[in-house]
């Protein structure tokens, strides 16, 4: 039995002739934050959807807590504790914090047939949970629309954790946020990991990823360029790998040669 919470081994995904993913391998331990980096079109979305159970991988295996698993849809992944927070966050801005927090999973009370939504309990839990991450929801019955982007992101993450996530997949959680908001969200992600969650943080922003990540996987044109522990790689190296740095290096050499030839 390995000590990895979740392993994705040699995952490939094809759409017709298009190879969307090829031989991508990722392993996460409890409490680890792995950053998945890649430029636009690198295959990040396909990989997330495969991890989340939306797509079935065509090759490779997914091992959750030592057990070889095939996800038969997103609900399967969710039941195994793999929760994905997409960019749209699945929050309804006209609804209150509490109603959003428990959307689809409302606590009930009362006799059968007349079960009611236990709003007091829900309010209490929502306020408590948000309080734990340092967000003082001034009133849990306020509309989510009145919250800031960072607070909304934290609400969506907090909701996923409350409902039993072990592995948290976060799709660009900081991309729409300002510097301060982003740091609030990143701080929360670190805190969640320190409490034993495995986090896959998908981003194209190395500056957000580097301070919080334990390991980094760079994706380029559907292939993994490798996974590096933080001590083995610098921010600059990551950045140049993501941007297809080698191609740029080659380009530079060619330009120099052209210059030399013309003089």
């Amino acid at each position, binding site marked *: 039995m390995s000590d990895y919470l979740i392993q994705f081994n040699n995952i490939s995904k094809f759409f017709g002739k298009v190879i969307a993913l090829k031989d991508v391998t990722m392993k996460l331990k409890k409490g680890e934050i792995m950053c998945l980096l890649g430029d636009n079109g690198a295959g990040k979305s396909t990989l997330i959807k495969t991890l989340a159970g939306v797509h079935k991988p065509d090759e490779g295996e997914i091992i959750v807590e030592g057990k070889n698993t095939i996800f038969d849809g997103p*609900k399967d992944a969710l039941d195994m504790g793999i929760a994905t927070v*997409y960019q*749209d*966050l*699945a*929050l*309804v*801005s*006209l*609804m209150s914090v509490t*109603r959003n927090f*428990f*959307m*689809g*999973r*409302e606590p*009930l009370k009362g006799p059968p047939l007349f*079960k*009611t*939504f236990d*709003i007091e309990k829900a309010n209490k839990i929502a306020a408590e949970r948000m309080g734990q991450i340092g967000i*003082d929801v*001034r*009133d849990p019955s306020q*509309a989510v*629309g*009145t*919250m*800031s982007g960072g607070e909304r992101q934290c609400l969506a993450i907090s*909701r996923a954790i409350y409902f039993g996530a072990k592995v948290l997949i976060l799709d660009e959680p900081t991309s729409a946020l300002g510097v301060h908001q982003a740091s609030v969200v990143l701080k929360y992600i670190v805190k969640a990991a320190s409490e034993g969650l495995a986090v896959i943080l998908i981003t194209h922003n190395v500056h957000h990823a580097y301070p919080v990540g334990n390991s980094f996987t760079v994706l380029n044109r559907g292939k993994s360029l490798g996974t590096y522990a933080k001590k083995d790689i610098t921010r600059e190296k990551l950045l140049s790998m993501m941007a297809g740095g080698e191609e740029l290096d080659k380009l530079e050499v060619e330009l120099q040669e052209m210059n030399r030839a013309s003089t």
Partner: protein
Amino acid sequence: MSTKSKSIENKKEINQDERLQRVSKLRLLLNRPELGALGGAILVFIFFGIVAGDTGMFSAYGMLNFLDVSANLGIIAIAAAMLMIGGEFDLSIGSMIGFAGICIAIPAIYWGWPLWMSIIFAFSMAVLVGYFNGILVVKTGLPSFIVTLAMLFILRGATLALTRLITGRTQVPGLRVLIENDPLAWIFATDTFKWVFTWLGSMNLIDLRTDGTPLATGIPPSVIWFIFFAIVATWILMKTRYGNWIFASGGDKNGANNVGVPVGKVKIGLFIGTAVASTVFATIQVLDAGSADTMRGTLKELEAIAAAVVGGCLLTGGYGSAIGAAFGALIFGTVSMGIFYTDIDTDWFKVFLGAMMLIAVIFNNYIRRKVTESK
């Protein structure tokens, strides 16, 4: 801003979040969707109190009159409001009223069914029509506006064609004699609290007929149904899990789906709700009039939607209230009857209805921006 600095000065509140402005009860009330309709209803009553206060509009008889009209509209407006909160429209409400009417009358008069069986038949048809509307909208992803507009024509046409085919005419009279001793019809056809009116009459507190019985005989069934609908709808919306799902489905279909809300089922349920409410409306009216008319309910869908909008429902879904729709219906019912007691030509009613709706939409739009925008 002044409230903010005050709360910081106040030592007792220093432990609270300094960014929490003291929200007065009034401010909280202002954020409720039904506020506009409540205010409108009060204004309408003040207006008629001044203009028509001495005309008998506010006698027991006059009040029951406009309450009856409001209640009938309210029954369908509440169902329409719930559907709108769930993010959809039903334009087939009016046609469903006509259809339900003949579903009761033809079996009862021409096929010799007992009245209760015809009523159950009409409600079964309503569930089918609602289910069909719902499944069509959910499965095709087409706007409910178009799907139910098609149903508006289909149902009205079928009602006319079938009635003429079976009966050779467009009206089916003769139901009144069947109501007596029917085990089900009384639910839709009995005036209640008669003893109150008899007592009020005996005390000479309300107007009497020449034979000494009170002019207003009891609370009409529509009012009881209206109150029942308002309570049940509000309970569902505010207190149950299903209510949360309705708001979620209307607010953000995809988001709701992603967290496990069965959006499709919720919407189908709401479409069945409007069809059933239309049938309650139809049953009450058919039994009251003693006849079914194929044109009954024409344009009622628009009045119901107007009342829901005045009651604070957003056209985009996810926001609104059943109580608001009830007040919206009360405003329209009161004005449509009250206008007879004034010197104003009744032709102006539609102008009022339109203007009222326009003001409501502008007001709702403002509220929505306030609710959704960041602080």
